[in-house]
């Protein structure tokens, strides 16, 4: 599904990604771990199409297409979803309008008619129940005045609405208490199937107790320095990142 080869990217002249290689297949859950400043969030942003990062070398192939050549909105239409570490507040744009526009833009991309209002509301109801998001939140402006936990839950709600093929969840666990973490993880697990894949970016092992990864990668100084199975995450938890820093 996703093939990243020798990806280099910089911001304001500073190289952050220094040759990433990663392959993700349908049905898999990958965890990317690493110390602060190693390039985890940059990788997520580059995959979603954030323009402030400049790709200087390498390629990203997504379902046989050149991902780096696509506008951010088209990446979304093709099935990429980025769960933001810091979801953005958009005063005045209602969640309902936001989601309806997003779904309809995707339908337009695939030459489909706009969704019927009744169908849309039905889907909203279903997905709200699935991720256990408060109805009150979806009647408000996007993320405006939401607590940290509510914002993260809202990311998973949007993910449920958009039904992506490849979800990249950037530090979804940060700022969550244990109950919120469980709900968010439960949402991710329920949305998981053999056709989609999830990349979980996290600093701590804690989230991986609830979202069990097939593969764990350690990102350090812009490169994936080691990969393994979920046991690697436990080892990291035990030894800390200094162990990685010393080794590489």
């Amino acid at each position, binding site marked *: 599904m996703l093939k990243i080869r020798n990806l280099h990217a910089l911001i304001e002249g500073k190289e952050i990604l220094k040759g990433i290689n990663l392959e993700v297949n349908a049905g898999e859950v990958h965890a990317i771990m690493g110390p602060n400043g190693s390039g985890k969030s940059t990788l997520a942003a580059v995959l979603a199409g954030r323009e402030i990062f400049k790709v200087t070398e390498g390629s990203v192939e997504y379902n046989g297409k050149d991902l780096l050549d696509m506008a951010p*909105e088209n990446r*979304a*239409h093709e099935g990429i979803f980025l769960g933001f570490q810091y*979801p*953005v507040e*958009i005063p*005045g*744009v209602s969640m309902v309008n*936001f989601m309806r*526009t997003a779904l309809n833009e995707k339908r337009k991309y695939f030459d489909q008619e706009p969704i019927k209002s009744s169908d849309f509301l039905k889907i909203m109801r279903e997905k709200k129940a699935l991720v256990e998001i408060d109805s009150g939140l979806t009647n408000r402006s996007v993320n405006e005045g939401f607590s940290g936990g509510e914002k993260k839950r809202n990311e998973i709600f949007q993910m449920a609405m958009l039904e992506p093929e490849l979800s990249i969840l950037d530090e979804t666990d940060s700022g969550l208490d244990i109950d919120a973490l469980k709900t968010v993880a439960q949402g991710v697990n329920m949305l998981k199937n053999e056709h989609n894949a999830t990349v979980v970016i996290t600093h701590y092992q804690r989230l991986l107790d609830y979202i069990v990864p097939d593969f764990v990668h350690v990102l350090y100084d812009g490169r994936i320095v080691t990969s393994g199975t979920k046991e690697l995450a436990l080892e990291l938890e035990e030894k800390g990142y200094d162990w990685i820093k010393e080794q590489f």
Partner: protein
Amino acid sequence: MDVATENKKISTELSDWYFSSRDRLMASSSSLINAYRPEAMEVFRELGIPDQKQENYKYTNIGKSFLMPFRKYIEPKKILFSVEDLFHCDIPDLDTEVVLLVNGWYYENQNQLQTLDNGMIIGSMAVAAQKYPDLVKEHYGKYVDFRTDGLLALNTAFAQDGTFIYVPKNAGSNQAVQIVNLLLSPEDLFVQHRNLVIVEEGAQAVVVVCDHTLSGNKFLTNAVTEVFVGANAHVEFYKVQNEHNDSQQVATTHFHQERDSHVNFNTVTLHGGLIRNNVYAKLNGKGADNNTLGLFLADQNQHVDSYTFIDHAVADCTSNQNYKGILDDKATGVFAGKILVRQEAQRTTAYQTNNNICLTDEARMKTKPILEIYADDVKCSHGATVGQLDENALFYMQSRGISCRESRLLLMYAFGHEILKKVTISPLRDRLDDLVEKRLRGELSRCNSCSLHCQ
């Protein structure tokens, strides 16, 4: 020629025109309107057209607007075709009494002065002054102080017609009066109408004013509207400006508010070349409440200047100003908002907010709060911002599949909606929402309600 000389020349021309047409002016009008003319002309000759040395006109060169050779009339010129066939300014589901003003004159093919079942009178200013001299005399010219601004003096010297609305004590309904100001002429025209709205004690009124141009000529308008709001009266006043970009307009609206009265005033500016809106509110009775709002959308070379002056003359009044602007291309905008809290106006609450978005590097916005506070027990605040669209929000929306263009539109629409959501009449709010969205999408042609399609 420098600006001062130019302005002097314009002022001389206008005063010459006054003296040469004075007899006809006087003969056409009621004596109570005529009574103001000599002094107003004298003041105009002294003050002239405001230049940019005057603090209130610092960022708008209004003199330039007067340079073109506009035609001026002191009697209405016959319009050869039926306006009804050409124009409909529809607000679906809104029960309105529509009246037309064509080139500043109360349109002749409509009842010149009608009395509704609830005692409300709507009609021509000129006719009302003849028919109800005592009523008009009590209010006409009593609120606007023409000694403060040459353009107010100019309007007062030449005032002949406009719209007159009278709502008697405790009367009122939800029915809105919609005044459609049409500019339609085969030649470039200078128009000065004068309007009077009297809402007596305990009465209610909803007024919607729409400005439109129906021919491609250059127009210059210098209009004045006085609104008397009696004790406990409630006035909703909306202005929708949608003239073409070769038109220029100075519009002054003055609210005089008595005890416990409420005014919601909202100006939505969609199109127009140069627009200067003056809003004066005098809170003259305890407990008076004034909400003055504005939203303007400007692009190309449009210039929109909003000046507000909220005068807290007595204690225990509240006022709230909220203005927003979106500027694209090389558009320029100005907001200068004055709050005066007089010494006796204790326990005043007065707020002012002005937020603007410049979409390009070339768009310019000047914003200036002016607070003069002489009382010591007051709550006053002001805030102003000029910024760009939030890049993080744009990317967030794009990452959900919403195109860049659509994301920008959603953000702009959301920004403007904060003003529109304060419109209390829902059919009007829906219509304004629709107009603003069309305007943002570039789908609102300046003549979209007109079958002439003159461009």
